[in-house]
């Protein structure tokens, strides 16, 4: 089994390096094929490991030592247990699909090879992240995915910076930097969490740390939990570190699907799930509650912004954000396995949604404004189908135990909120379910139904290549059927994760709750149908209203950040350099030099060259000596 672990882990790396060899040469389809194959191999290995874990149990391998200093010993160790194998399978599966998809999507890009190199490198990093058996190993992957995300968001680096009005993300390279830096802010929190654990436990191995938790004081537990969650907030784009995620849509769409929907952004949730022994501690219950509350807030917050957005990919990005909020809500409330389940299910339908959006974009020559689309279902039947399915899954449509993937996972989360007597959260989550359905179908209807507004642009849309559509089918299928494996999945992961049981009461009224949620969801869809099925009718008055503008400008948060952080930081930096460094610190140093020189110039004037003056100085010096002698005498008397 050990070899399988290594195959699963290193196959993507091999692919990445292989593609990197051709990184600077012209498009070579081989790279696409080889990397896709290697990712598929990795998927197969992961799947075998999955069954192995299910039947036999976890696999733990230790490759070699990494850092050894003082009492610190960090190995490269890999742990394949229920949590990680779930993640591995999901990651490699989605990755495989995305890789194959990219072969078609990136067809005309001159940096085809480079793209695959980055993409596979990302998969490798993600695998390290989920498979590592210690926190620092996780951090490797954590940073690795960050860099790959940076590379991939900025993939079209040659694009110019434009103003925020023209493109809210300014440029790919700008968005990439924003993502990286925001993640770094959170990473510092993560690092501090690691320090806290190291100095209080003496190790960073998961098993050792979790075993030692009961011995730690409350303060330390809280500090560690908070610090680690700050790390999670960055990677999972939770408020207030969320702005990078929508800007990250500047990257190629497969990237958005893989990294910014299915895998990387869920790493934060993964961390909380992985560290569930910590977050389940009694001492940190309010931290967990805060996580849940924040998650709920982000769910509705992101959903509200999605309501008015016109950018196909950004809508999906907001919805990702919103769904991440759901996951955190579940994890924060202690329903870790439900969070993990939603994570997996979400990965499937969200990736599908994104890839579908990619098809649309491909067809529309890169146009993303849904106001300029419409009626595409005629030419893009399959894509319409996929996106419809994904949207239904996202909206959580289903009834009485039959439904799309989202129905099972999201409903469960809402139920948990009710079960924990956090009725405020529950209310918000239910409301958000309605919003989710509305914006999902607003997008679907505006894109695929109604009048064909794209004619104005002179575009002739066409369906994506066949093999790409075939490649998407596993995701579509999973988006439909994944929910049915809920109980099986629960059984599988609760061997490791704490079980979560609904109370008697909740269980009793579960069907009412479910009905309520479905009512909201269906309500949202119906509303969207009424408003947008016939085509686009712009409501100028609404668009000028304060709320609409607030939402479409993302609550003015990016501008707020720019005005209160980026610009002041730049100004302060210039001040530090121009004024403090040059005019104070350096000027002081030079000032000392100048002072000495000026004194020298002044003193030099006494050297007049006139002998008479010299003689006077000599006699004067004698007097001076007398004076000094007197002082020195007094001094020495004083000393006695």
């Amino acid at each position, binding site marked *: 089994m050990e070899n399988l672990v290594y195959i699963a882990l290193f196959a993507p790396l091999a692919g990445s390096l292989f593609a990197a060899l051709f990184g600077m040469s012209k498009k070579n389809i081989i790279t696409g094929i080889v990397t896709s194959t290697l990712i598929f191999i990795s998927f197969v290995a992961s799947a075998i490991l999955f069954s192995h874990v299910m039947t036999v149990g976890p696999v733990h391998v230790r490759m070699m030592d990494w850092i050894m200093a003082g009492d610190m010993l960090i190995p490269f160790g890999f742990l394949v247990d229920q949590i990680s194998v779930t993640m591995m399978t999901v990651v490699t599966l989605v990755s495989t699909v995305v890789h194959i998809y990219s072969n078609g999507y990136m067809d005309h890009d001159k940096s085809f090879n480079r793209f695959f190199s980055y993409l596979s490198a990302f998969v490798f990093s993600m695998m390290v992240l989920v498979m590592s058996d210690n926190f620092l190993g996780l951090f490797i992957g954590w940073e690795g995915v960050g860099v790959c995300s940076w590379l991939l968001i900025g993939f079209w680096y040659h694009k110019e910076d434009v103003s925020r009005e023209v493109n809210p993300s300014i440029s790919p390279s700008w968005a990439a930097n924003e993502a990286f830096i925001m993640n770094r802010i959170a990473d510092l929190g993560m690092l501090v969490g690691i320090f806290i654990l190291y100095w209080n436990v003496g190790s960073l191995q998961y098993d050792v740390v979790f075993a030692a938790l009961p011995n730690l004081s409350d303060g330390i537990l809280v500090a560690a939990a908070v610090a680690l969650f700050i790390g999670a907030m960055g990677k999972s784009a939770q408020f207030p570190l969320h702005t990078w995620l929508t800007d990250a849509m500047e990257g190629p769409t497969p990237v958005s699907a893989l990294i910014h929907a299915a895998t990387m952004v869920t790493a934060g949730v993964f961390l909380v799930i992985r560290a569930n022994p910590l977050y389940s501690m009694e001492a940190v219950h309010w931290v967990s509650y805060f996580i849940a509350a924040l998650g709920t807030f982000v769910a509705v917050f992101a959903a509200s912004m999605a309501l008015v957005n016109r950018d196909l990919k950004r809508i999906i990005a907001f919805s990702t954000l919103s769904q991440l909020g759901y996951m955190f809500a579940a994890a924060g409330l202690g329903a870790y396995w439900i969070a993990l389940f939603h994570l997996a299910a979400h990965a499937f339908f969200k990736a599908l949604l994104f890839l579908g959006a990619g098809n649309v974009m491909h067809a529309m020559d890169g146009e993303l404004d849904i106001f300029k689309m419409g009626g595409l279902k005629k030419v893009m039947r399959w894509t319409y189908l996929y996106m419809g399915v994904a949207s239904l899954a996202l909206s959580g449509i289903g009834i009485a135990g039959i439904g799309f993937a989202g129905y099972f996972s999201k409903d469960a989360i809402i139920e948990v909120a009710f079960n924990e007597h956090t009725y405020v959260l529950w209310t918000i989550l239910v409301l958000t379910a309605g919003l989710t359905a509305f914006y999902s179908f607003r997008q679907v209807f505006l894109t695929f139904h109604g009048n064909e507004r794209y004619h104005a642009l002179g575009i002739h849309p066409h369906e994506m290549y066949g093999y790409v559509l075939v490649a998407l089918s596993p995701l579509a299928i999973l988006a439909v059927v994944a929910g049915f494996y809920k109980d099986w999945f629960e059984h599988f992961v609760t061997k490791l994760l704490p079980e979560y049981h609904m109370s008697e009461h909740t269980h009793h009224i579960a069907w009412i709750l479910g009905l309520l949620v479905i009512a909201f969801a269906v309500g949202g869809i119906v509303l969207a149908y009424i408003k947008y099925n016939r085509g686009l009718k712009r409501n100028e008055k609404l668009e000028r209203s304060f709320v609409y503008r607030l939402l479409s400008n993302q609550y003015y948060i990016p501008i707020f950040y720019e005005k209160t952080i980026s610009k002041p930081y730049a100004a302060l930096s210039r001040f530090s350099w121009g004024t403090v460094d040059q005019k104070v610190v350096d000027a002081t140093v030079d000032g000392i030099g100048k002072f000495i020189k000026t004194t020298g110039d002044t003193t*030099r*004037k006494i*050297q007049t060259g*006139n*002998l*008479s003056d010299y003689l006077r100085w000599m*006699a004067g010096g004698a007097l001076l000596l007398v004076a000094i002698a007197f002082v020195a005498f007094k001094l020495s008397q004083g000393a006695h």
Partner: protein
Amino acid sequence: MIGLGHYLILSGILFSIGLVGVLRRKNLLMLFFATEIMLNAVNIAFAAISNHYHDMAGQMFAFFVIAVAASEVAVGLGLLVILYKKYGTLDLDAYTVMRG
């Protein structure tokens, strides 16, 4: 009765006169004279103290001072001659090429 103190005061006064001469005079020759006064002031003091202590060293010192003063004048006058040839004046203010 004239005591040691009076001699020393005389010596001090002469020394001061010489010093003031050195400081005030601009003519080199005059300046040399002033230094001679200073040396002679010293000689008076040496002689007086020598007498006071009944110690011959002071007088010996005075003789040496006289001898040295003589040779100093010899060298000094030699210098003056060259300088006069070169600058045409003995005014100190003329010799200020080197400064700073």
